[in-house]
């Protein structure tokens, strides 16, 4: 039996080069210290795959029409316990995905991993973050219950604040000046076709770039970390640079070129990645079973006593919209747009070789403020909603 399996594997390898592919994929040298922090990327990927699988399942049942969208989900809720759990997994994995991808970005930002030669890793990562956010927002429209309907009203209205073309954008998304059947069809199309069609190639590009340049890790893995310490000598350069052949290009970059100590991706890092990803999947499953995915009453555009509550990831912006007077709303909406543009430009603005976050205050301080503002606005927004 074992010989037969081995022969089958040889046959397959001869035609696909699977053995060398696996070797290349699994035996990558990764930095040793702080490795648990480097599991966020793989956890993000696992959660996206979970989204894909549960999403495919849901498209088999969901009817994207204003008369039947809610009915189809209500059927799941009332009569199909397994389907309801799958929908719960889809929702909770989306929530946790947003949180994990945010953490992954923050870690990458603070560790300076976006610097040369990994600028495009960062750019593709920012693109993935925006797309995941887009998936979450469009996904929130689909149940066509009260929460979904009023979220759609608010979000499509936000698009209308875009200078010059705002009204056109809103009409394009809604399919008319007001919300209607085309709004749901278009949003469904964007959610299941347009965004994934960009998302998955971008994931491929992100992973290919990661493999090309290797995991950077954190400044603590490099000789540069010892440069600013009082009474500590800079350790000698490692004998080889297994990760970054085209790098360093300048003498100042040598301190950050190769990690002092590495280990194989398999089994060391894959073990940690597996533990974190499995734990997250378990958490998602527990939440899906225990809480599930809520479904409010069917959308009623004529209602006058419904108070829309935004999704949690929308809270910072929602709080800003509440705080800022109507005349200044376009100014507030510049913030997220400008923020994304700044993030995309970051590796081209912060080009110095230094990776130690404490030695990069000019970038770290505004970054820390941005994170603090988001956290504080989320807290304030949740407090406000609690007392509605």
């Amino acid at each position, binding site marked *: 039996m074992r010989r037969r399996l081995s022969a089958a594997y040889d046959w397959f390898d001869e035609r696909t080069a699977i053995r060398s592919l696996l070797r290349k994929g699994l035996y990558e040298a990764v930095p040793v210290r702080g490795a648990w922090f480097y599991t966020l990327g793989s956890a993000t990927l696992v959660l996206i795959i979970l989204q894909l699988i549960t999403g495919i399942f849901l498209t088999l049942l969901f009817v994207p029409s204003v008369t039947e969208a809610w009915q189809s989900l209500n059927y799941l809720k009332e009569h199909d316990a397994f389907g309801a759990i799958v929908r719960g997994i889809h929702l909770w994995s989306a929530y946790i995905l947003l949180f994990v991808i945010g953490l992954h970005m923050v870690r990458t930002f603070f560790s300076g991993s976006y610097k040369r030669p990994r600028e495009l890793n960062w750019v593709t990562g920012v693109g993935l973050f925006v797309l995941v956010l887009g998936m979450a927002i469009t996904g929130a429209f689909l149940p066509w219950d009260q929460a979904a309907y009023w979220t759609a009203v608010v979000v499509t209205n936000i698009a209308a604040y875009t200078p010059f073309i705002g009204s056109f954008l809103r009409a394009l998304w809604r399919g008319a000046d007001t919300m209607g059947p085309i709004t749901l069809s278009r949003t469904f199309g964007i959610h299941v076709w347009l965004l994934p069609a960009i998302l998955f190639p971008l994931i491929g590009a992100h992973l290919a770039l990661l493999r090309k340049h290797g995991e950077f890790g954190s400044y603590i893995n490099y000789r540069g970390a010892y440069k*600013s*310490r*009082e*009474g*500590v000598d800079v350790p000698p350069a490692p004998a080889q640079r297994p990760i970054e052949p085209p790098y360093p290009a300048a003498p100042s970059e040598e301190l950050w070129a190769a990690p002092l100590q590495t280990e194989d991706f398999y089994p060391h890092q894959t073990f940690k990645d597996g533990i974190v990803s499995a734990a997250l999947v378990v958490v998602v499953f527990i939440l899906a079973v225990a809480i599930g995915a809520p479904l409010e009453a069917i959308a009623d555009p004529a209602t006058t006593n419904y108070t829309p509550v935004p999704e949690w990831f929308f809270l910072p912006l929602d*709080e800003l919209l*509440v*705080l*800022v*007077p109507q*005349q*200044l709303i376009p*100014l507030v909406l510049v913030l997220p747009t400008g923020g994304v543009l700044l993030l995309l430009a970051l590796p081209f603005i912060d080009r110095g070789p230094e990776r130690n976050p*404490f030695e990069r*205050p*000019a970038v770290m*301080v*505004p970054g820390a*403020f941005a994170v*603090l*503002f988001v956290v*504080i*606005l989320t*807290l*304030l927004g*949740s*407090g*406000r909603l*609690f*007392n509605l």
Partner: protein
Amino acid sequence: MSALLALIAPAFHALQTQVPAQAPQGRNIVGAQIAIGSLFSLHILIAGLVSGAAELGPAIEFLGYVRQRRNYDRLAHGLGRFITYYFSVSSTIAILLITVLLVGFWGHFWTTIVTIGWWPLFIEAWTFVLQVSLAYLWYYTWEPMRAFKGVHMAIGGLLAVASFLQVYMIDVIASYMLTPSNPQNPVRLALNPTSYPLTVHRTVGNLAYIAFAFGGFCAIRYLRAKTAEDRRFYDWAGSFGLLWGVSMTLLQPVVGYSYAKEVQLHSYGSWYKMMFGSLSPVFLWQITLLGIMFLTATLYFARRLRTDEAPGSGILKLLAVGMVLTTLLAAQPYALGFSYETVAAAGLNRPFWEGGLINPLGSMIPWKVLALMFYTLIAIAAVVWYLRGLPGVVWGTARRGEQRILMLMTVFTMLMMVTMGFIRENSRGPFLISGEMTIQGQQNVPTPTPQSSP
């Protein structure tokens, strides 16, 4: 002896006839407000520093450990010493306030608030015990536990958590008094509409306050320093304090505005009093003072870089000009009288060019909101430019002017603390608990019950 008795006896006799045998219990409202208000202000001025030091000190120790810098360790140790010296002063005032003044003047109120906020006050009392135990442990084990820095930093971390919890619990009570929620539900009580914003506002404020305060203290020590090492340390610590203080204050416009928004939604009378009523001149002073603080800090940054000819001084001067213009915008009064309330009562609530007393440029929306946004953005730019220039600074070379600015910032911060406390505590008037208990006679206001439909 008999002569002395003859002298004292009439005085005792006079006292016996004039001093009431029992506590005033709200009968002397002005006396109670002056006594409690002034002592509370003093308590908050010291307690804010202690809480800030207990939260900032461990963070600085951690930074020093990560960066392997002795300066940070020395500064954190100094903050630890400050806590051990001043904790008891702050506590004594608090106990005097509660046991003598609150019980004596507003006994009914105090009983009511303790009944309502029993759980927060219970937790508050225990975090108090935890805080003092950890503070002394943290400070006195500094050298003995140098070989176990991780454990020592963990003690500091617990101290920071205990201090935060203590502030949060007392904020639950303070915020409840302004925006009461269902007292039967402890979660509703703990998360009443203004408890979140007040806690964030006060925590960030305490961190800024202690930083500005030790900045000023270091400025004095710098001017008196005898050794080059001390000059280097106090110069660096003063700059670090100001930088940290400004960085924390940057968050306050958003947090403070959010706080005011919640007051508007849940305690409209208080909000109206702050924005349009008798407290509006104090509010105007507050927003102006904020601009003055940012401006002063920007001037320090510019001067400090210029002293060592480090890059960035020119840009910082430009930012200071921007801050002056923003402060002028923020300082514009809306009503060219005592308050909008008085102007409206006189029928003069129309623009000044139409013969009224209204200055549209002083309106909150959009002008003061814009000014708050510009404060934040310009201050962030100032911090970033200063940080960019810092590698060119040689510590120990600062001039007297910079040290005077640091001391001035401490005074401004104390003024800000007192101003904010004054606004918050007076906005509730004529209530002790908004809409529920009056100051006059501590009368409970009956809650209107909805009419049942036939």
